[in-house]
């Protein structure tokens, strides 16, 4: 570092403040370059002082309209965005889900009296066994949508007790009916002959006269079975023969 460089900071300070130390003064007396630099820096300080002058034209600090962070436009914008988002999601969900069943469907115009019956239905106590309206029944809703028929007005039941289960119907056996029939004066009464279609079909294979004739129990199934021939004769002929023999025996006894 040369001696002039050593006084560089001191030169600036001397130009700025005007304070010159004795050591600095001795150097200035011996160094014309530093004297010239000091004069130059003093001129610069004059220039800086000129630059320090506040310009007359200073823009007014009109900050409020430019910079005030007004909250409500942002809040309003955010609210609109949120509302639109909610509406969009809701619309999407509604379109995605099946249409709910209308609880009170429009009544057909051809039945204007039905609204008069409605109060009667309302007055009735709630029937526990009435099927509730199922809202999420896709098949039923599809049917409704396709046919577009109104739902029938449910008729309330008078009885609250559940219906008894139907008893099992015994299988009708015409053979058993013929066997169980009691002969009157050696003949089966006509009303003892089963009148059901099945029984008539079975009996129709026999001549009416013989059908009215009591037949041995063991012979009846065979008589009714046409696919059981014996001795090359038809079942009808055999049955007639046997019936005649038995009747003769009965008459004899």
């Amino acid at each position: 570092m040369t001696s002039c460089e050593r006084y560089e900071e001191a030169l600036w300070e001397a130009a700025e403040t005007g304070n010159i130390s004795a050591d600095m003064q001795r150097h200035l007396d011996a160094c014309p370059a530093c004297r010239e630099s000091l004069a130059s820096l003093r001129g610069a300080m004059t220039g800086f002082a000129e630059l320090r002058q506040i310009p007359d034209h200073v823009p007014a600090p009109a900050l409020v309209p430019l910079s005030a962070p007004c909250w409500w436009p942002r809040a309003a914008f955010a609210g609109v965005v949120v509302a639109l988002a909610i509406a969009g999601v809701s619309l999407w969900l509604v379109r995605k889900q099946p249409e709910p069943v209308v609880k009170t469907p429009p009544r057909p115009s051809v039945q204007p009296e039905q609204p008069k019956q409605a109060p009667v239905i309302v007055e009735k106590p709630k029937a526990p066994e009435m099927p509730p309206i199922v809202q999420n029944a896709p098949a039923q809703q599809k049917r409704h949508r396709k046919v577009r028929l109104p739902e029938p007005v449910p008729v309330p039941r008078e009885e609250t007790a559940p219906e008894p289960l139907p008893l099992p119907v015994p299988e009708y056996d015409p053979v058993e009916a013929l066997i169980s029939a009691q002969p009157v004066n050696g003949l089966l009464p006509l009303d003892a002959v089963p009148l059901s279609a099945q029984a008539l079909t079975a009996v129709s294979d026999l001549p009416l006269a013989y059908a009215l004739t009591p037949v041995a129990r063991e012979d009846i199934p065979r008589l009714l079975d046409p696919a059981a021939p014996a001795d090359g004769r038809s079942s009808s002929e055999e049955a007639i023969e046997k019936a005649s023999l038995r009747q003769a025996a009965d008459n004899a006894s």
Partner: protein
Amino acid sequence: MATGTVVAEQRERQLIARARAGNAAAFDALMAEYAPRIHRLALRMLGDAEEAEEALQETMIRAFRHLGRFRGDAAFGTWLYVIAARVCLTRRQAAKSRPEQMPYDELRISTEDAAAQMLRREAGDRVQRALNALPPPDRLLMVLRFVEELSHEEIARVMGWSVENSRTRLLRAKRAFRERYEKDM
């Protein structure tokens, strides 16, 4: 930066507190005190009156938005200088290719006699030309030190450097300035 009186400091603290609470009028009152200095800094840094006004507005906007970050560790003016310095440096970088103007002499109304005014204006012109020839960081250091008259500590806060680092860089800026200033004889 000149420190105000205790009353002025108390008033400034009250204004800051109210401005922080969202009182725009308090912020306006605060800025009315600092706007001329910020504008001057921008004018010396940018060399253009319109750009200086825009820089002032941008500085005020940023200050208002980030007022909650002002912790009171430094003076409010120093904090404003930090913002203004960044604004000016950014604008200076963006306007590097544009030719610089000499605005200050057009903006002054002088009551001095013509000769003295002319000498002062010439000195100011010369300094401004030398400043304009400096890189923006060096120019900012010189403006902060010799136009805004900030101390080394305040410059270090504004620039975000240590005091020693600030001194070293300022010395380099002084050398560069002197070189350009003496060339412009």
